[in-house]
């Protein structure tokens, strides 16, 4: 819908939601007025991670697909993204290609230098900051 912020969720955030469905991260998908986006490639990665953690992925993936817009894998990406890892560059490219406003991750090892920065129109934010920011707005609107 026009005017709604488009939020791209990285695989680690979805893994955190899937691993602790009763935890705080699960609240993210309940925030109102946001369009959540991720990619098929990231959902594949989430599946592998949940299996590795001993969590049955099917019900969660179904939930993610119902709540989120799933983009196709991009076949080309902006040159010169300031990331060393190919997977990170691809995930950010997917957010850029899907016209997202924010890219949410908790992979601080690779993204820490980008927190608070805008890359090709996408604001990079740590998931914990995102959670606090939108949880506060939800409380305020209740």
């Amino acid at each position: 819908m026009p005017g709604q912020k488009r939020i791209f969720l990285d695989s680690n955030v979805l893994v955190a939601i899937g691993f602790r469905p009763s935890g705080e991260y699960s609240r993210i998908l309940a925030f109102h007025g946001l369009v959540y986006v991720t990619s098929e490639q990231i959902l594949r990665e989430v599946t592998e991670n949940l299996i590795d953690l001993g969590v049955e992925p099917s019900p969660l993936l179904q939930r993610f697909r119902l709540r989120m817009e799933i983009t196709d894998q991009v076949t080309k990406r902006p040159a010169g993204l300031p990331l060393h890892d190919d997977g990170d560059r691809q995930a950010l490219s997917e957010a850029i290609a899907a016209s997202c406003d924010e890219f949410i991750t908790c992979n601080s090892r690779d993204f820490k230098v980008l927190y608070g920065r805008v890359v090709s129109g996408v604001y990079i934010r740590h998931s914990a900051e995102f959670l606090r920011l939108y949880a506060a707005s939800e409380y305020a609107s209740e």
Partner: protein
Amino acid sequence: MRNNYSVRVDDAGAVLIPAEVRKAMGIGSESLLILSQVGDEIRLAPSEPVPARRVRIVPREELAQALIDGAITPEGMEDAKAGIRELGLDPAEFTPNF
């Protein structure tokens, strides 16, 4: 270098990118560009091919830190600690960064 150029679309839908723009942007024959429609504008950005992506297994420590960082209520903190124990790690080794 100028910021605006008038270009005409030919019968095949092609437009010519001025030589000085190609030179300044490092665009050569067979370069990949991303074309996007932004409102009433068309934008072109240099791009590169994407190699097949490896699946990344999130390190247990990264997930544990994420759980602690994401805990914003006492109940959430308890759940995060339970999750960290389930990962085989000691919650006392993780302190919130937020």
